[in-house]
């Protein structure tokens, strides 16, 4: 990739990013559907005592828990049970970044790479959603709710780390890593050339 091509690549990424953000914003509820399914699957397998139901409402995934609301500031479902709405977009905004990078690279099989990239991101996005839910019930909703979860001190620390990692690192780093892995040949070719 010569210097001019690299500058052109960066400009193309910006242009595609604007388009991809627009599409993602309006399609985010549809794109979140598999995340809701994965979140429900994980909740059934790993958190059956804590989660009664997982529902999708547009861009939000609602966890209806078996925990009782300890104060009026916590959102409740029927029966005074704690429910938690998670905005999926906070964890999926890396998808337009990945789409922009794939489309700007103009490598073969762009459509296939977009689909693979979308599928690869899903578990990491689900991680973010579930970690935020766990952080809410373990810390955010206060000691009245946290005491019902039965989490130990080290489990709360692990949840806090998983939430921070899922919110601050994974949404943007995973798309970049996936793109680099998909374009290894481009990168190797790139590394062989010198800028000057």
């Amino acid at each position, binding site marked *: 990739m010569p210097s001019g091509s690299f500058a052109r690549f*960066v400009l193309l990424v910006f242009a595609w990013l604007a388009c991809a953000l627009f599409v993602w914003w309006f399609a985010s509820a549809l794109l979140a559907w598999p995340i809701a399914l994965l979140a429900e699957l994980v909740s059934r397998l790993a958190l059956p005592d804590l989660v009664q139901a997982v529902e999708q409402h547009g861009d939000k995934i609602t966890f209806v828990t078996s925990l009782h609301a300890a104060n009026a500031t916590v959102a409740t479902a029927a029966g005074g049970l704690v429910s938690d709405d998670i905005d999926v*977009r*906070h964890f999926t905004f*890396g998808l337009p970044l990945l789409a922009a990078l794939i489309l700007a690279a103009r490598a073969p099989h762009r459509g296939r790479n977009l689909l693979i990239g979308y599928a690869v991101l899903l578990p990491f996005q689900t991680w973010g959603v579930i970690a935020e839910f766990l952080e809410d019930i373990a810390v955010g909703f206060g000691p009245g709710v946290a005491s019902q979860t039965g989490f130990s001190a080290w489990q709360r620390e692990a949840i806090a780390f998983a939430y921070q*990692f899922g919110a601050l*690192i994974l949404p943007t*780093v995973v798309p970049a*890593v996936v793109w680099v892995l998909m374009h290894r040949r481009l990168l190797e070719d790139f590394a*062989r050339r*010198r800028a000057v």
Partner: protein
Amino acid sequence: MVRFFLWFLVLQAALFGLELTPWAQQWFVVPWTNTLAAISAGIVKLFDPQVLAHGKVLKSASNGFAVSIEAGCNGVEATIVLVAAVLAFPASWRRKLAGLAIGIVAVQGLNIVRVISLFYLGQWNFSVFEWAHLYVWQALIMLDVLVVWLLWVRTLPRPEADLPAVAA
């Protein structure tokens, strides 16, 4: 490439874990975030003298609007990703240190642009501020990290195996 990615993931997780420790927060993250607010205020004061920095908060004295620079907006995580990517990639220590020095300046420089732009976007339209804050700038900062890293990779000398053979 596999070795690079494994090292990248390990370094990134270790550095991020280190960042979250109370020690790192007290001695590095909080002082850096306060410095970032002070630098941003210093730049903005060149054309808007009504701006003040209190700790990690950037505030307009004229209308009271303020932004607080929180985790994720201080550029520390983006810097961690860059540091992990540069350290994990095979290169001499001299080139790694040069890449880190220039790269960190590039990432933090754009982050100052992010802070200042969000400060004014928030005063203009809060919905636009939220959109730019939560989604657009997050993607742009990571794009900055990726571009800086790719440019650094580009400056590295060719691997020995790729050099043309020399007759003995």
